[in-house]
């Protein structure tokens, strides 16, 4: 028992695990930021009336929501080279995760955009705003409040999904933990060390999410939807 604790502690402070955790964090943040950008573009495109644009958007959503992320990761890593596109494991992983995430973020943004009614938009137009200005100054700031809580949840989901890129040999937390254990069969210790890192990072995300939500909470009566982390933090405080 004592021996296990010592080993876990040594894993936690090892350069290998620390580097792997850094890789997991980098994968998560890069994929998420790119995914949010893709999602926003897709959500804005969906507002367009153009049939072709809408059809392309539907095709994208259908493909990326209808197939496993794991397949998407392996596909981008192994099939794109056939077309002369050579990407590192990290880049392939980020692209696959981001494209997948974009399909879900689009839906989140869409519900945010729809939460701002036509009359508010009209008020913007009546002040002499152009379409993009109405979006920028009237719709998006209000949509943000609806969008932030589920986005935080997606961030945490991404942290866990990033473990999937271990299949294309990206040295992230789970792969390193697994490799370490397969050398000495101390699965309990190495997986526990990995779990501790994951928990530290999810907790960190929750705190950041909380800060951002506070910043956007300008009104008091109109409660934004409560996120999981908000409830969690409230519980720990009580």
């Amino acid at each position, binding site marked *: 028992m004592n021996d296990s604790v010592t080993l876990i502690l040594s894993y936690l402070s090892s350069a290998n695990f620390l580097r792997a955790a850094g890789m997991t964090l980098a994968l998560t943040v890069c994929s998420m930021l790119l995914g949010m950008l893709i999602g926003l573009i897709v959500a804005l495109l969906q507002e367009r009336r153009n049939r072709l644009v809408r059809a392309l958007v539907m095709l994208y959503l259908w493909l990326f929501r209808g197939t496993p992320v794991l397949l998407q990761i392996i596909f981008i890593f192994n099939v794109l080279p056939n077309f002369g596109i050579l990407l590192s494991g990290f880049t392939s992983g980020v692209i696959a995760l981001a494209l997948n995430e974009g399909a879900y973020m689009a839906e989140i943004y869409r519900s945010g955009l729809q939460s701002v009614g036509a*009359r508010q938009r009209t008020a913007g137009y*009546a002040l*002499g705003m152009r379409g993009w200005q109405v979006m920028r100054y009237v719709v998006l*700031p209000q949509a943000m409040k609806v969008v932030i809580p589920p986005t935080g949840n997606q961030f945490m989901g991404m942290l866990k999904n990033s473990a999937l890129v271990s299949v294309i040999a990206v040295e992230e937390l789970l792969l390193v933990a697994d490799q370490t254990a397969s050398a000495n069969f101390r699965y309990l210790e190495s997986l526990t060390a990995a779990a501790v890192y994951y928990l530290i990072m999810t907790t960190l995300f929750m705190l950041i999410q909380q800060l951002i939500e506070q910043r956007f909470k300008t009104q008091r009566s109109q409660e934004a939807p409560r996120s999981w982390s908000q409830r969690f933090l409230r519980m720990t405080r009580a």
Partner: protein
Amino acid sequence: MKTDTVSLLDIQRLNKSFGDKPVLKNVDVNVEQGKTLVIVGPSGSGKSTLLRCMNLLEPIESGVITFEGRDIATPEARREAWRFRQEMAMVFQHFELFPHLSVIDNIMLAPVKIKGVPKAQARQKALELLERVRIPDKANAWPEELSGGQQQRVAIARALAMEPRVMLFDEPTSALDPEMIKEVLDVMTELSDQGMTSVVVTHEMSFARRAAHRVVFMADGEVVENLPTDQFFGGEVKPRTRQFLDQILH
């Protein structure tokens, strides 16, 4: 009293349908510089639609909308609708303040972001406008903290901040509790007295009597009556108008 009449906004033979339902039929309305035009009529007669057409918020089937001597209903002009809208402010039944911005930021948003007015100058002006609509102490409040009457006065200040040539009011007091109607009408009356060109859709006949230079009565998408205020309320009117007036005044 009336000297030369300069037309600021002139609507001619305006036709507008929603689907195959005609909502405005050959409407002619003329808004003179510095005057207040009140539009009355039963629900569904097309009053809001007419205001939205004036502001190019609705496409039209046919007709001419002349603003400051220029036809703004042409496809080319429509592409720059935002330009004209900066000079035609609108006040809505449900205020439509931006809930994510404080009162002062609601008023400053368009001047600063759309017109490029320096912030300090826009703030100064916003504070003056709040003074003018008689809520100088609410600059830093959030819209939701205000009563309906206060919100509507902020909406008027927000509209005035763009220094429009004409103000379009669509039933600005219809969503208000009775005790707040007066404070909004007082502000509007003052604007009218100061020579702000206004088009006001309202059911407040006392306001029409006091502030309007002309009154238009609409029914079923048509202009039934278009008379100077004293004639509208005192003189010979068509039976359809009489019927409406009798209903609303008793």
